[in-house]
């Protein structure tokens, strides 16, 4: 990928993010923040790349592995906690009966 096309990707991604969040009810701000936060753990892909390309370089393998751990902590924890919050909203209708 050339640098210029990566810049395009950056630009379009930012615009997409701005557009997507346009109208969010305040109720969902906290879950949204937490969900978006989980997505930012996408750096796990960079950590994976690092490990795969380490080619037996042990210090690099360790750095990659620790980085992967931090990223997955963010991703797994983030999605679970968001789900927990949202489950409190969605269980309401069944309770009313």
């Amino acid at each position: 990928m050339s640098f210029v096309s990566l810049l395009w990707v950056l630009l379009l991604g930012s615009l997409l993010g701005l557009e997507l969040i346009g109208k969010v009810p305040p109720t969902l701000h906290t879950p949204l923040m937490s969900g978006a936060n989980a997505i930012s753990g996408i750096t796990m892909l960079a950590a994976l790349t690092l490990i795969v390309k380490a080619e037996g370089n042990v210090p690099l393998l360790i750095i990659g592995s620790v980085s992967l751990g931090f990223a997955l902590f963010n991703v797994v924890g983030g999605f679970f906690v968001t789900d927990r919050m949202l489950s409190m909203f969605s269980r309401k209708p069944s309770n009313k009966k």
Partner: protein
Amino acid sequence: MNLPVIIKFVIDLLAVLLLALGIKGLSKVKSARDANRLAAFAMSLSVVGLLSYYLGTSGIAIQSWIWIIIGSIIGSLFGAILAKKVPMTSMPETVALFNGCGGMSSLLVALGVAIFPISGGQENFDFFKSLINEVSISVSIFVGAITFTGSIVAMAKLQGWLSTPGWTQSKVRHFVNIVFAVASLIAFFDLINGNTSSIWLLVIFSSFLGIGVTLPIGGADMPVVISLLNSYSGIAAAAAGFVVDSQLLIVAGAMVGAAGLILTQVMCKGMNRSLVSVLFGGSLSAQSTVSSGSGEYTNITSCSVEECALTLEAANKVIIVPGYGLAVAQAQHTLREVTKKLEQNGIDVVYAIHPVAGRMPGHMNVLLAEADVPYEQLKEMDVVNPDFPATDVVLVLGANDVVNPQAKNDSSSPLYGMPVLDVQEARTVFVIKRGMSAGYSGIKNDLFDLPNTSMVFGDAKKVLNELIGELKDLGVGEK
């Protein structure tokens, strides 16, 4: 293009699409839960895509698999356990912690690549490309470090592990932070120049900058900071995407970065604060002591829990205004018991939710949902404000600045212009509060002086428990 490249391209495209749909879906109550799962699925898909690409091209060594599995298991396990165990009231700190770890991950990737350049890219090595590489590594380290230390400080402050040191409220902190910022910038450019040893200086100074910027910020402004740091972690991820040449990382990082920025803006608007004043103004109480000094309460009516119960029993329509204090007292379940009793007596009960009620926008909704309050009873400010004149009783629990009529009436007030709930329009207002201390802004609340306002002094949970007893004595809700 060979097959693995095509497969990865298709999977990446699909993952981006699903992530975008996920963020979109998270903005509607009905679809939010599915959207969250969709985003989680997209993330796992992207991992599958990446791994299958390497399996199909260079292959993955056994040694790499071992480290991948170790890292994944430890990270996922701790994340899952924390997510299951943490109480709903500490949600802001939890998000801050997760966020900080995301920043740390980007920082480590950039460090790893900087210290041990990844092989393979050497053939088409040219000056321009290496410059871009150096810049993206530096950005990733800079933003990643700030995100990490900033989030950890934010978490520690929200948990009460750290208080605001006195010197951080003076001008000294600007000087200190400028020194850190300049030092980071020097290290930044030195690193881009090819001086690899300055990478550690960059790590150290940007870490200190993260601490120095976050430490002076008052507890109530913390959600804004967390939201901003969340945006930073997206930027850090995008920068890491440039480092390892991954479009998926750049798109996802940019989306989170942009979305976080919008969310931060929304929060600032709700609190009538500008981002600049949150970041550089210190805590609001420090600035406003002069203007609020004039306010002495002259006409405070205090009343007993019994009177409050009697008035509630006779009401037709009751609006509850929950605030930060309710969350601190963890009284949302007790509150729910009170409102259940009132509802059983045929009284119309709704909850008025100010955009920044609780410790984060939407936090109060989560807390009330946890206490089984039906979602339909939660009304947003703009919806509920016209209803106050037709309301018999308003119960203000641990909210203060968001019900201050000064924001509408007094143009000299620091609160002027902030959107507030017009509780004073109701026939009777009960304010349940520990004492006469001011809200987080440190500003006198004119509401307390109004003739239709009565103060019920005491801890929110204790008062609500007494209220349940009184209502029981009156036979409310026992049909």
